[in-house]
């Protein structure tokens, strides 16, 4: 798997992401600077990591979404290339118009940094093929603006087309408002675009892949991508 991690000023999770990609796929990703205008030839997966691009100035992800490299990311996604945005990366994909909706301030206004439980809605996606539908995974979140909203028509379409891949839930997989950490509409934690090849999610699966940390629930996402690419090849 040839992955490329896009680096913007103010991003701080790019090394976690690179470490995970190297660990799970066996190949170190290319690090691509925001001012570049092209991705390395043959890139299979583009990852926009988490952090605070441009200090969250204007709106989270707004300025990064307009930087030169994003034209190349847009072209990669348009031809069906796998694209993953985590945390600030999700915000950037929304601001760039590659995913619908907006990540608003957390409903309780606090920055939340802790493990959450996610229900994997189905495994019929390159991003979730490493899991079973209905499986509950534990991964961390670290964000102040993760409260997903979109207009009512968009939510109906996302739900109807099976484009919600992850929801905040209880350890048993129940959708209870008490476990919806940021107040997101329908407890949405991660969605894919119309063609299913662009995933944005607030939680950080890249931080739960090594046994030394006690939890490896994030590994399935990356292992599933490696597998999906192998099958496609």
């Amino acid at each position: 798997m040839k992955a490329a991690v896009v680096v913007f000023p103010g991003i701080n999770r790019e090394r976690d992401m690179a470490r995970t990609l190297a660990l799970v796929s066996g190949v170190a990703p290319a690090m691509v600077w925001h001012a570049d205008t092209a991705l390395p030839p043959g890139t299979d997966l583009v990852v926009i990591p988490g952090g605070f691009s441009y200090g969250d100035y204007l709106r989270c992800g707004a300025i990064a979404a307009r930087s030169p490299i994003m034209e190349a990311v847009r072209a990669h996604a348009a031809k069906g290339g796998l694209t993953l945005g985590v945390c600030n990366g999700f915000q950037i994909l929304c601001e760039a118009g590659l995913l619908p909706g907006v990540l608003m301030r957390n409903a309780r206004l606090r920055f939340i940094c802790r493990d959450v439980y996610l229900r994997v809605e189905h495994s019929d996606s390159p991003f979730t093929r490493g899991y079973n539908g209905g499986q509950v995974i534990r991964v961390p979140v670290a964000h102040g603006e993760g409260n997903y909203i979109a207009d009512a028509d968009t939510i109906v379409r996302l739900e109807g087309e099976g484009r919600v891949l992850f929801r905040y839930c209880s350890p048993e997989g129940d959708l209870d408002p008490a476990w919806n950490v940021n107040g997101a509409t329908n407890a949405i934690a991660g969605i894919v675009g119309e063609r299913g090849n662009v995933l944005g999610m607030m939680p950080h699966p890249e931080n739960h892949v090594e046994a030394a940390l006690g939890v490896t629930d994030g590994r399935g996402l990356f292992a599933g991508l490696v597998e999906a690419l192998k099958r496609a090849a």
Partner: protein
Amino acid sequence: MKARVTVTLKTGILDPQGKAIEGALRSLGLAGVASVRQGKVFDIEIEGSDPAKAEALLKQAADRLLANTVIENYRVDVLG
């Protein structure tokens, strides 16, 4: 030319920051505040002297960057 772009949240979009400010104003004892919505103001200097051109330029700026039109409205005022 001076101009101002005002960006406000659309009706129906929850504004927890505005709500918190509203609560703080109440706790200051300022009676009569019914509700608060927080927005943004951009003061922009424009080259040239054609107000119509300036307005068109600022509309583009607002559509493409200053506002996220999924959740925000904007208003452009060319002040001359």
